[in-house]
């Protein structure tokens, strides 16, 4: 498996933008995760963000809240997450990042968590409720285990703070398109383009946009001024509505492909 950094180098050479997909681990059940990851990989997804379900997801909208709560009910936890990942790592070629809230990582033990990630071949981590100010220990330990730490910049982040966030980041910088929770919505490109333009003047790291992205058109518009976009809730909703169908994985592949401009 390659790292996120390497993936972006590869994409740059091919003059391509990153298609990042988010799915929660263990949704609809733990045994679905392998098939879903392989399907995403086979559908042109460049990087997969695998969400760790948490009981109190304050940054998530209704779709991901529901999915992660189902995953928890069906027994998803950090222990069987790593068991699953270790089993499938030889088949996964796209870089993986774990998207999580801090408490499950803290409870696992930060050092131990990164060690397990490294062993399972996971390149990056995004911790929604861990701002840089609380992350010095986390960053140090991530470096030790060669984990890329992805942090967030938002529409209300002042530039001097954004610079500090960039400094702490590895892999890419996650730009949150709007103030709000995850979920499908319309995005206004003008302000977004100018913010990201400013951000890119201050970093060589790729900048990807997430929250709200759910169509091919949005994806294309966002990629005019960024290095990629993240689709989450739309895919999660599709999985929720279709996973019981016999040809679910084919349908998922078709759907995911339809989100990416050629």
């Amino acid at each position: 498996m390659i790292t996120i950094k390497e993936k972006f180098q590869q994409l740059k050479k091919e003059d391509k933008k990153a298609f990042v997909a988010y799915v929660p681990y263990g949704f609809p059940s733990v045994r679905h995760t392998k098939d879903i990851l392989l399907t995403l990989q086979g559908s042109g997804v460049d990087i997969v963000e695998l969400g760790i379900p948490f009981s109190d997801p304050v940054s998530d909208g209704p779709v991901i809240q529901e999915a992660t709560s189902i995953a928890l009910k069906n027994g998803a936890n950090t222990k069987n997450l790593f068991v699953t990942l270790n089993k499938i790592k030889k088949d996964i070629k796209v870089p993986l990042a774990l998207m999580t809230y801090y408490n499950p990582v803290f409870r696992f033990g930060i050092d131990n968590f990164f060690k397990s990630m490294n062993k399972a071949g996971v390149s990056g981590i995004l911790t929604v409720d861990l701002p840089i100010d609380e992350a010095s220990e986390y960053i140090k330990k991530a470096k030790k285990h060669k984990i890329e730490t992805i942090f967030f910049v938002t529409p209300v982040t002042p530039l001097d703070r954004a610079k500090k966030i960039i400094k702490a980041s590895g892999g890419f910088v996650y730009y949150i398109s709007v103030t709000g929770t995850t979920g499908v919505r319309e995005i206004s490109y003008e302000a977004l383009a100018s913010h990201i333009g400013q951000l890119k003047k201050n970093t060589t790291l790729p900048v990807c946009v997430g929250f709200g992205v759910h169509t091919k058109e949005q994806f294309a518009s966002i990629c005019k001024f960024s290095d990629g976009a993240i689709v989450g809730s739309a895919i999660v909703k599709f999985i929720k509505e279709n996973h019981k169908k016999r040809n679910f994985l084919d349908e998922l592949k078709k759907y995911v492909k339809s989100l990416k401009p050629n």
Partner: protein
Amino acid sequence: MPLPNKKGYFGAFGGKFMPETLFPCLHELDSFYDKARKDNAFKKEFQFYLKNYAGRPTILYFAKNLSKHLGMKIYLKREDLLHTGAHKINNSLGQALLAHSMGKKRIIAETGAGQHGVSAATVARLFNLKCDVYMGEEDIARQRMNVFRMKILGANVIAVKSGSKTLKDACNEAMRDWVTNVRNTYYLIGSTFGPHPYPMIVRDFQSVIGKEARAQILREKNRLPHFLLACVGGGSNSMGLFAPFFKDRKVKFIGVEAGGMNKNLNSASISYGAVGVLHGAKTYVLQDRFGQVKATHSIAAGLDYPGVGPEHSFYKNSKRSEYVAVKDKEALEGFKMLSELEGIIPALESAHAIYYLKKLAKRARNALVVVCLSGRGDKDLEIVQQCTDDHR
């Protein structure tokens, strides 16, 4: 009160574990509050409303019959006599003044028992702010009168249907609203939890309880009490009472948590939890071994919360305070005991602290004790009636 440090830590507890979007507004709040706490005009205005609107100072009442019954000298700090019926109004007045000075036109609040929701709705009328209150569906069902009060006061009560449908989920939903409407909305947190600077702000506004009690007991007995006793959910009435006595090392603090049904189903975060991160702070949290927050239970909706203010976690680990758990049934006994002996009907939250007097009496005969009677029991009459009927 030297704590917290600049990063918002009380020893190893506290901090700002929040989504990045909320950072600028926490920073803004921090700097506004820093100015306000040193500003005489702000302090004067706060004092004015505490006195003329909330009805401070509250009396420190010597509970003669209860004292005789238990063999101690028991004083009740009567926060139940405040406008709206609980200590929550102290904090709501202070934060509404802050929100007002920050130019925010809308406040949001979370509520469990509805007492904080009512006090937020009240100050919203007083200062002409729009007010939305998040409340778990289960709490709406068990605290109907407070829901009605909030509605009369013009607040919009939003039912929270996610998770356990109690205070924790109301907090989650309030935070989602805040992260979305961060530019124009002030989150009026009701207890000493949340990201820095909230635990400090709420403690400071509530510390009027302890400051008054300290002066009152010195005036009356010419000495400090042996014990301070208060119930702990998020921890605001207890921290309000304890903090001004922090340096009086001989005064022992006892925080009474909600022991619920048993060791597996309760809201006693310090007694039965482990250190974790919830709603912005590192603190004791009721959680499983994978870091998932557990479902909680207490007969007192206001204590039904899986976390606790970080300063309490600090008090616990530094042994400044002791924490004990009192079960639902015992709280009901406390409720009955105070009603029958003193003619004072306590809130079920406060009844936890009242009951613990009975246990304390066994190891501290004749001790001088100040108990925070954080709220009145009117809101709980239906619940108590149900429990009494069940026993028949």
